[in-house]
C-alpha cells in the first residue's frame, strides 16, 4: 500500500496518507485529479469495488469531506479518498459512468447534504424524503431535535428534576 501511495502521490498530488490499519488507508485528493485517479485505481491497480461514497460535514471548517472508499478485493486493501468541497456551494463531480451504483450514493448526498452532482441520473428526484422543505437534514447545522419538536407533537405531562437542583431547593434553599 505504501508503495502504491508513493507511486501515486507525485502524479495526482495526494495529501499525506493516514495508515489507519493494515489494509485501510486514507488520503486527501484534489478535485481536478479525482477522476483520473479513480480510473487509474480501478483499471490499473485493481481497486474495482466502490465500497461507499459518503460525505462528512466539517461545519467549523466550512467544508464538506467526500469519502470515496475503494477496495482492491484481491489484495484486501481499502483506500479512502478524501475530497474537500467548499461548504457554501458544494458541487461534486459525478462518477456514475465509472461505477453506475455511485448514482444512488450521489442521489443520497444530493438530498441529505445538498451536494450537487450535475449529470448524475435522477439526482434531483426525491430519494428518501418526501415533501421535504427544510435544509438537507444531514448537515451539521440542521438540528433534528428542534425540528422534531417544532413539527411533531410529543406526549405531554412529563417533567424531570435534577438531583442537584432538587436537593438545593429542599435542603439548603438559602445558599
Amino acid at each position, binding site marked *: 500500500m505504501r508503495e502504491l501511495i508513493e507511486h501515486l502521490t507525485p502524479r495526482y498530488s495526494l495529501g499525506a496518507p493516514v495508515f489507519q490499519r493494515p489494509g485501510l488507508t486514507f488520503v486527501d485528493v484534489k478535485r481536478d485529479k479525482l477522476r483520473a485517479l479513480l480510473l487509474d485505481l480501478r483499471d490499473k491497480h485493481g481497486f474495482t469495488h466502490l465500497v461507499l461514497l459518503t460525505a462528512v460535514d466539517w461545519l467549523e471548517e466550512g467544508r464538506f469531506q467526500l469519502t470515496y472508499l475503494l477496495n482492491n478485493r484481491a489484495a484486501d486493501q481499502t483506500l479512502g479518498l478524501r475530497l474537500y468541497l467548499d461548504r457554501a456551494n458544494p458541487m461534486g463531480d459525478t462518477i456514475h459512468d465509472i461505477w453506475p451504483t455511485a448514482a444512488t450514493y450521489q442521489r443520497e448526498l444530493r438530498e441529505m447534504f*445538498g451536494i450537487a452532482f450535475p449529470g448524475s441520473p435522477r439526482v434531483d428526484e426525491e430519494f428518501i424524503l418526501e415533501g421535504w*422543505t427544510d*435544509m438537507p*437534514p444531514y448537515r451539521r447545522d440542521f438540528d433534528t431535535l428542534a425540528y*422534531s419538536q417544532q413539527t411533531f407533537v410529543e406526549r405531554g405531562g412529563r417533567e424531570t428534576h435534577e438531583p442537584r437542583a432538587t436537593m438545593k431547593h429542599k435542603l439548603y434553599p438559602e445558599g
Partner: protein
Amino acid sequence: MKDIDKSFKKDTETDFPLREEMRPRKVTTPDGQVIDIDPLQDYFCQEPPKVHRKSYSAIVEGFYNWARANSLWILGFGTGCGAIEMRPLMTPRFDAYRYGIQWRPTPRQSNLLVISGYLSVKTLKRAIRAYEQMPQPKYVVGLGSCTINGGMYWDSYNTIKKLDEYLPVDLYIAGCMPRPEALLAGLMDLKKLIRKGEAEGANRYAENFDWYKANQKSVIKDWDMPDYSW
C-alpha cells in the same frame, strides 16, 4: 445528550425553496384536459368519511361484534420494525389463525391496521391512505413504544411521535419491540374491546375528521400520491 438549540428556526423559503415538482402547476391529462395540480393538497380525502351508526337492535349488534371480534383480518402492511414479529404469528410457533386472525393483502378486506412501530412521514401518508380505504368498522393497534411517544426515534426529523394525533388508535402494545406473545395478548384484548362494542375508532375518525386532517397536514407536506400506491 446535547441540549437543543433554542435559536434553531426554520427559514426554508429563502434558503431552500420548494422543489420544482412540488410547486402548483398545470398539467395536461392523457385525454387532453388541462388541470391544475397542487402537490401539497390532499386530493384523496376531499370528501369526509361518514359516521356509521350501530345497528338498531342490540342483539344484532352484539352478534355482529362477536363475528367482528372472531374474524380479525389484519392488513399485511409492515410499517416499521414490528413487522418482523408479526411473521411468527402467521407461522407454526404462534399460529394466530386459530384465533380467527388472518392477514389480507388489500386494505379493502382488512379490519385491523397494525402500525408496527415507528411511522416515517412518507409511510404515514400511505398508512392514512390504507386506513381510509379500509371498510368500517376498522381498528388500529399501535405496536411498540414508537407509536406511543416516539420511542427510540423521539428526536428524529422523519418519524411521528404520537400516533393518536393522526389515526384513532384502539390499543397500544408497549415494548421495543413487543414479542409475538405480547402482540397476541394485545389482539386478544382488542377482541374483548370489539365484543364490548368499544372499538369505534372509525366513527371517532369520522367525527373528528377535520382535527385529524389538520394534524396530518401539519406533518405531511406533499400529498401527491400515485394511484393505488399504498
